[in-house]
């Protein structure tokens, strides 16, 4: 029944579009691409826009928006594309809008993403730190002491990030919650600390995620740890239990994550060429690092960068359009 209602609505909208005079080009089809406020999504949003305009002759508008707003917008037809849908982070939203409501579809191939603990190359060389568990050794911790109190410091993420709560659990499980001081700070402060630590030759250990421009800006070493084992992760959320930290454990590395392009499912019927492009689009982790570096570090203008990228990657794009 719902599906039928939706079809009627879609048909009505299409009819309206055909009778209302539109002041744009002859091809009145237009897609709204949402632009979340982080560099790689800004880049991919514009790359998709350039491909749609240049190769498929579809007009595009860009709309800055946050993830929840984008999911709502796709659901109510005001937005058509979300450039980066992170999984498993957004699993609940995907279940709601893709699996239950059927309003959003995801590209088939996600970009692999990862979360780890990192050090600079200099740090790895002077401290000898190799693995996350090394940090539980007070002697190792002392090598990261930046305030002369004998105890090392480690950045575990921004206070507002959901990953930071998990990093506290990991610190407890690995034992370095007892040997190191866990710091929470905005990402810019932590990244500037990496810059300054390299400038003066001072060890620093920090939470890191890929893809990220940091890996192109500096020589970064990822600390080793056992791969994810679901049996060794038990996460109790603070909202559910005041003793969440004591009751939780995370004794291995993070589970792999990945992100996909999200697009309005109705496009499969309304604009099959565009829908098939979104389904096939395949960025690599390296692509995303390059894009984030170009925008964040080199401060390239997203629209110009996208045009250049599309010109330089025409063969790959041809494959996505078939």
């Amino acid at each position, binding site marked *: 029944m719902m599906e039928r209602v939706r079809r009627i609505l879609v048909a009505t909208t299409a009819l309206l579009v055909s009778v209302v005079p539109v002041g744009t080009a002859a091809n009145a089809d237009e897609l709204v691409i949402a632009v979340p406020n982080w560099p790689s999504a800004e880049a991919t949003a514009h790359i998709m826009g350039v491909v749609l305009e240049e190769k498929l002759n579809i007009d595009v508008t860009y709309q800055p928006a946050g993830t929840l707003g984008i999911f709502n917008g796709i659901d109510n037809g005001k937005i058509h594309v979300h450039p980066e849908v992170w999984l498993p982070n957004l699993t609940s939203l995907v279940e709601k809008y893709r699996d239950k409501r059927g309003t959003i579809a995801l590209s088939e191939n996600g970009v692999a993403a990862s979360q780890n603990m990192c050090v600079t190359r200099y740090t790895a060389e002077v401290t000898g730190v190799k693995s996350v568990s090394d940090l539980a050794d007070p002697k190792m911790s002392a090598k990261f002491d930046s305030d002369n109190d004998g105890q090392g410091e480690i950045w575990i993420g921004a206070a507002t990030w959901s990953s930071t709560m998990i990093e506290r659990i990991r610190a407890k499980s690995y034992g370095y919650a007892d040997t190191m*001081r866990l710091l929470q700070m905005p990402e810019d402060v932590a990244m500037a600390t990496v810059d300054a630590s390299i*400038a003066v030759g001072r060890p620093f250990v920090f939470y890191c995620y890929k893809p990220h421009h940091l890996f192109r800006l500096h020589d970064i070493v990822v600390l080793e740890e056992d791969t994810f084992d679901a049996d060794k992760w038990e996460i109790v959320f603070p909202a559910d239990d005041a003793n969440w930290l004591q009751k939780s454990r995370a004794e291995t590395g993070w589970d792999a994550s990945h992100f996909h392009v999200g697009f309005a499912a109705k496009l499969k019927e309304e604009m099959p060429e565009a829908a098939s492009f979104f389904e096939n689009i395949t960025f690599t982790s390296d692509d995303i690092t390059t894009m984030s570096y170009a925008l964040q570090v080199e401060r390239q203008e997203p629209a110009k960068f996208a045009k250049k990228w599309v010109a330089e990657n025409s063969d790959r794009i041809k494959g996505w359009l078939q």
Partner: protein
Amino acid sequence: MMVSRRKFLTTTGAAAAAAILPARDVLASRTAGESLILDPETREWVRYSQRRAYRYYKKNGQVPEEFRPRDVPFRTAEEPGTIIVDGNKHFLYFVQPGFRARRYGIGVGKEGFGWAGIVRIGRKAEWPTWTPPAEMIERRPDLAKYAGGMPGGPDNPLGARSLYLYENGRDTIYRIHGTTEPWAIGLNTSSGCIRMINEDIIDLYTRASVGAKVIVLMQGAALFRGV
């Protein structure tokens, strides 16, 4: 966002103290905490005390080489014009294009700044007025004559220039300013602000714009105890 609300509230006391910039005579009678500075020859961090700093300055008429302004390689994603303050190593970086920065020596608070995070330059002033807070005047009746503000000048503890640090458009009461005690660069002696020798703050003042981002790194007692 500079610090969490909670952190900001807990440091309000320290912040108030920061505004109480001690007059020269008060400070001189204090024993400053030692700090570590980089020996340019051995590239080792060596102990640096107020006595040593004062002796050095008297003999050489300037601060140790490491604390004099210089252009250094500095790879960062931050935009040129951004200021990065590394209180632990007593350096202030003014980011320049091409992965370089102009680096200055600074003096910082006895216990760091009591905060770390991201602020902006809200306004700038030449030869700023310094107003001792009421509590300070209570303890130091001789300062009563400055209750309405001590005019800018060579004896004013704010020195030649001041950059006022704002968070979300509001004055944090922290400043980057000049000093009447140039030998104190490299030490943790001030009440919380970031001090530079007058020549350097004048140089930075001409380069830094109102609205520029200022990142104060986690350091010393300012280490963010969010957990």
